[in-house]
């Protein structure tokens, strides 16, 4: 690219020929005010605030707009001469003639010392900079906006000023408008509740979670303008490393592996069915997950504990065992709730002046340092009530006016019915198995218990292995677990997997089933019966074949074989008949 030598405010520099003064000035840190310039769009020179003085060094000089004036060899630019300031002042006052309320114009006016615009002020907010029209055309590619009419009547509008199908509701025009003339209107009136906190930013590019592996941003096709109109691609423009790949799609990859570790985790119980707690009905009844999100310093409230109206709560009740230890939902104890509920109390005490009530069935502080933490919470003045909350009712319907909500419960230690007015309730929801755990387990031939947790090979002696060799369990997919236990199990699973890999060979159990090909009629009944898909059909010889490495010797196929062609080693028919005979003789 051909380079030319220019000077800006006396600083010599070399820039590409036919680039514009504005970029050249920005590259050496001289900022020129502008209202209608945006890097990804063609300059338009509508606002004329960016005007500068161009000189050739031989006496010629002219006021030009920096955003669209191409540089040439020997050009000298002066960005802040009295002549420039005067021109900008004039142009700004002309803009203010029709549009004054906009903060950006008022700020500029202050900068240029305009107290009273010469031609008066107007209360229209559009300065006809054309950013919205250009962004819709050039970046978004939706072409839903255009200038209409001429002269005084000139305005920005959609075709015929009607709602248009071309508009994809991306909001780019509203975002880019320097004077806030364009606003996104909610199509439906929306009530903001805490539940929305969970959604996070709905930007088209996000890093899924802070600890995501790999920790890279992803494009969400549903929100991305490019996938709606084929335009935009601003992210690709700004990415210096050319990392943006719009053609990337989900793909299925096949991997040969020697061991598999299942770490599919848990699901959080949805407390909506517990109507008595009014989750989803009262905005200040929130789940533990939402409370945790709220406490995240990078979260939507910046780590502050706030009620829906943005105020700090004065009283908070924390309910244990929501959905767990409950015959109607999960009978098991979720194990982690007592401790995190206590942690919540600690956070509340630390961050607010709120009174905290803990409603528990049994306080299970079973781990190292846990009981000590419980004592510390008690010392911090948290009210700990032994009893399960019966119901939450709105306080306004009741005699008490203190809080928004009234918690009704029985304090079983003093044997009294209590009503506690609170501002906010946190429901410590049960840990439950993933909804798809059963289907996922089927793929790996591991079974789930009645609660949906994966079953380990032995509850005491093989808590990491499964009934399928080479498949190991880690973390809460096997049962409700806290972090230290999950880490320990994860480490154990990794070791087990490594043990298999380092051995290089597999030791098989001597008990497995065999098919005698002489007798197999090829009926295929056994093929579908095998839960381990160990039986294949040999089309060539028209017989079923058992892969002895996959067979677990359950014998289901043996019992099912109509011709008795399958033998279960160590549990043969003959052996069992002999036992029957022996017992009954």
């Amino acid at each position, binding site marked *: 690219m051909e380079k030319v030598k220019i000077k800006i405010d006396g600083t010599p520099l070399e820039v590409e020929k036919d680039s514009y003064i504005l970029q050249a000035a920005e590259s050496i840190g001289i900022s020129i005010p502008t209202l209608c310039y945006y890097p990804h769009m063609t300059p338009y020179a509508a606002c004329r605030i960016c005007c500068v003085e161009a000189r050739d060094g031989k006496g010629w000089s002219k006021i030009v707009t920096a955003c669209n004036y191409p540089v040439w060899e020997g050009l000298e630019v002066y960005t802040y001469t009295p002549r420039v300031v005067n021109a900008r002042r004039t142009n700004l006052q002309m803009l203010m003639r029709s549009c004054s309320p906009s903060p950006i114009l008022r700020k500029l006016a202050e900068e240029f010392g305009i107290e009273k615009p010469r031609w008066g002020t107007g209360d229209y907010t559009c300065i006809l900079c054309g950013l919205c029209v250009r962004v819709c055309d050039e970046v978004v590619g939706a072409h839903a906006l255009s200038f209409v009419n001429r002269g005084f009547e000139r305005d920005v509008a959609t075709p015929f000023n009607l709602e248009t199908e071309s508009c994809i509701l991306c909001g780019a025009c509203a975002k880019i408008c320097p004077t806030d003339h364009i606003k996104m209107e909610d199509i439906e009136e929306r009530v903001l509740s805490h539940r929305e906190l969970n959604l996070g930013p709905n930007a088209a590019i996000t890093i899924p979670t802070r600890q995501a592996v790999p920790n890279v941003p992803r494009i969400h096709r549903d929100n991305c303008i490019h996938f709606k109109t084929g335009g935009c691609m601003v992210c690709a423009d700004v990415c210096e490393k050319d990392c943006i790949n719009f053609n990337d799609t989900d793909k299925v990859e096949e991997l040969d592996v020697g061991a598999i570790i299942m770490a599919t985790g848990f699901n959080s119980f949805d407390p909506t069915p517990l109507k008595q707690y009014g989750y989803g009905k009262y905005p200040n009844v929130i789940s533990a997950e939402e409370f945790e999100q709220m406490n995240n310093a990078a979260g939507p409230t910046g780590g502050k504990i706030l009620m829906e109206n943005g105020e700090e709560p004065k009283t908070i009740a924390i309910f244990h065992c929501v959905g767990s230890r409950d015959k109607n939902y999960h009978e098991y104890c979720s194990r982690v709730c007592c401790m995190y509920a206590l942690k919540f109390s600690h956070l509340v005490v630390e961050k607010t002046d709120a009174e905290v009530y803990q409603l528990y069935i049994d306080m299970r502080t079973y781990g190292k340092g846990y009981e000590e933490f419980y004592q510390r919470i008690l010392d911090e003045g948290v009210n700990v009530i032994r009893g399960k909350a019966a119901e939450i009712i709105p306080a306004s319907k009741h005699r008490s006016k203190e809080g928004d909500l009234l918690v009704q419960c029985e304090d079983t230690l003093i044997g009294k019915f209590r009503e506690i007015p609170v501002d906010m309730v946190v429901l410590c929801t049960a840990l439950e198995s993933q909804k798809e755990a059963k289907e996922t387990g089927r793929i790996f031939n591991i079974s789930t218990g009645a609660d949906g947790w994966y*079953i380990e090979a032995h509850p005491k002696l093989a808590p990491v292995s499964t009934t399928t060799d080479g498949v190991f369990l880690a973390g809460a997919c096997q049962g409700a677990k806290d972090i230290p236990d999950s880490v320990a199990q994860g480490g154990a699973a990794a070791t087990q997997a490594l043990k298999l890999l380092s051995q290089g060979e597999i030791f098989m159990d001597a008990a497995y089933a065999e098919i005698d090909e002489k007798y197999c009629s090829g009926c295929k009944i056994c093929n579908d019966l095998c839960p381990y898909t160990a039986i294949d059909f040999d089309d060539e010889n028209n017989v079923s074949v058992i892969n002895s490495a996959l067979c677990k010797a*359950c*014998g289901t196929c043996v*019992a099912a074989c109509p011709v008795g062609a399958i033998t279960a080693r160590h549990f043969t028919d003959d052996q069992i008949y002999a*036992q*029957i005979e022996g017992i009954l003789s």
Partner: protein
Amino acid sequence: MSFEPKIIGFLCNWCSYTGADLAGTSRMKYPPNMVGIRVMCSGRVDPGFILSAFQKGADGVIVCGCHPGDCHYVEGNYKCMRRMPLTKRIIKEFGIDENRLRLEWISASEGAIFQEVITEFTNQIREMGPLALKELNYQPDEIADKVASEMGDITHV
């Protein structure tokens, strides 16, 4: 001397056999009439075993497996569960009361339940008296033939 029934139990290796072990190690007493045969899974229990047991002189047969959903082999107990009603239909054909055959789910931790079930089943069989089949004196081959001809596909489920 009162009638002491002979009962054969088919116990799955992972739940019921371990449950029986637990009953034993916990010093729980149950009648010695039931003698267990260990199979890897209740799905291994061939209806032929049950017929053979009755034919050889058992007064009752109990099949014990893991609770539904808890099967060590994913779903062997479901296979067993589906075979059992059909097996009952067959034994009825031979004039055997279907209550002499029972299917129970006993997990490895349910030693007490194992004791309870075996005691209860033994008492039940004792009340029912000896199995009259002994006089009928079917030959094993005849049984096999009858099974094959009448209910050929019973084991396929």
